[in-house]
């Protein structure tokens, strides 16, 4: 447990989403169009420290666009992004990263031939003089993976030899370490995984939450969403279809929101 204190910028494992607490990230009236396609229309969204938000919706509902705006990959046409209550503008994912927002891409962006430590430090290798500080890389990689309670046996194993869930853990570990992340965004983290591997990833998400980090999870699998999310945000055709606390809703209601009540 004491190890968690050494983690950079991890807030204390606060009681999740006490009412009246300030959101970590808040979006107000976000709109985004691609040509004639209105991907997002005046969407409000927020996520609190230590909260897991499940973002669901049909294909083309605007989920990906929304997280790309939060992660700095897209700039909204209109609307405001607030972090800790202050308005910000992201010009690139790097800007978002500086504010502690890290994204785990669906394809994970790992180099299979390189080992776990090298992947966690990809592009940011620490050096002493001109030589890579391999010892520090290994130590910090072990540390961050232990905090995630990952079952990766060694950080000196090539990533290509790991299972799908372990690869996901490496990508998450990189996001966490890289951005000293306060918010981790995951796009379909379990889409390609088997049951056992999915559980491991869901456990990782709970671990992030326990460390006081916020998590946004996009998933098509409602069972998974219900197992980890504190709140569920539903998008439909670029608009906010509804926000529900997990304990106040059920799968049937969420499905109704996703497809639109008129269809049932």
């Amino acid at each position, binding site marked *: 447990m004491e190890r968690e204190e050494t983690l950079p910028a991890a807030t204390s494992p606060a009681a999740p989403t006490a009412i009246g607490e300030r959101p970590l990230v808040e979006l107000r009236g976000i709109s985004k169009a691609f040509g004639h396609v209105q991907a997002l229309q005046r969407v409000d969204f927020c996520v609190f420290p230590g909260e897991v938000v499940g973002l669901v919706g049909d294909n083309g509902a605007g989920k990906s666009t929304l997280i790309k705006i939060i992660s700095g990959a897209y700039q909204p046409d209109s609307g405001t992004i607030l972090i800790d209550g202050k308005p910000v503008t992201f010009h690139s994912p*790097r800007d978002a990263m500086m504010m502690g927002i890290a994204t785990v*891409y669906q*394809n*994970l*962006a*790992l*180099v*299979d*031939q*390189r080992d*776990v430590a*090298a992947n966690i430090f*990809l*592009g*940011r*290798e620490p*050096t002493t003089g*001109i*030589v*890579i500080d391999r010892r520090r890389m*290994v*130590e910090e*990689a*072990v540390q961050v*993976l*232990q905090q995630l*309670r*990952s*079952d*990766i*046996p*060694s*950080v*000196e*194993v*090539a990533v*290509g*030899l790991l299972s799908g869930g372990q690869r996901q853990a490496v990508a998450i570990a990189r996001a966490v370490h890289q951005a000293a992340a306060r918010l981790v965004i995951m796009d379909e983290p379990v889409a390609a995984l088997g049951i056992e591997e999915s*559980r*491991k990833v*869901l*456990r990782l998400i*709970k671990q992030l939450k326990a460390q006081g980090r916020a998590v946004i999870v996009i998933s098509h699998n409602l*069972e*998974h969403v*219900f*197992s980890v999310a504190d709140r569920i945000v539903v998008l439909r055709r670029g608009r906010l279809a509804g926000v529900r606390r*997990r304990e106040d809703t059920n*799968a049937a209601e969420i499905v109704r929101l996703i497809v639109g009540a008129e269809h049932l």
Partner: protein
Amino acid sequence: MEQDLQSQNLQQEASGCGTNSVDAILDELESTGAAELLTRAGPRGLRDSLQALLRMREFSILSATILLFIALSLATPLFPQLDNILLVARQISILAVIATGVTFLFISGEIDLSIGSIYGFLGIVLASLIAKFELNPWLALLVVVILGAAIGLVNGTVTTRFGIPSFIVTLGMLSILRGGALLASGGWPVMIKLPRDDPFLNITSGHVGGLVPTQVFWMIGVMAIGGFVLSKTRFGSHVYATGGNQEAAILAGINTKWVKTINFMITGALCGIAAALLLGQHRNAFPLTGTGYELDIIAAVVIGGTPLFGGAGSILGTFLGAAVLGMITNGLVLLGASAYFEPVAKGSIIVAAILVDTLIRKRRV
């Protein structure tokens, strides 16, 4: 009563497929076993052996080198003599110097077919600078190293900025520079007239202690620096990442275009050094020098375990690959085989090396 309970349990299980069951499993996982699952620094267990398999690239080429050495030593007592070993070492030196740069290129996922032409062209330029323009040989060497890097810059820029495959770009450069060498020399050899004891000649192709060729030290030096950069520096790490997963490297903020371009430049610059090592030996530059040499160099790199598509490989492997080629050439001469047989043997070794590598790769999946 009992039946009731059972059916209740069943019902619970059936309806509990939602939140509760997964939660329970997660909690259970967390409370048990967690300590055993913690990540360690070093390799262990099953992964250990899998990783050993991954390292097999170098292991197989190392065993092949040793086996070949033993076989040739048994076949002819002349082979393991010190002066013969040094001869082989000198014969592979120039090839190994260029192959060091090509290893960087291959790992980053690019190829350079123009190396033989760059090498030949820079030889003509170097000899002309010394013979016709009476430039200090060291200054002339500096000029051709920079010129080689500039040629690499062109190869790299056209490849990375315009998205043309390096195979095509450097195939064009191969032809351009061969023509350049012929035009610059008028088709004739260019002879340099330096005194026999000129330090340029001694340092490029003399002998240390009257025994060990200096070219061997050039090879060791270039390969040691290359190996260090590749395995110990950030740049080396970025070379592997660029060839391993370019998209991931870009997302991680690595300028993959620049990494590749620098590798083309390193390769070109090393062709300049190689040209000087050869000129020191022959004191003549021939416009057709290096014709077909690219195939030998690429063969050494590939036999050494660096895959054509990048992401893996090492300088040590390339050295061993060059050593295998050198020993085969030398061994065939000592055994009195027809010189016409040498290309057959080399070609067979290349295919065999790739075959072994492919079989290992298949097993890995």
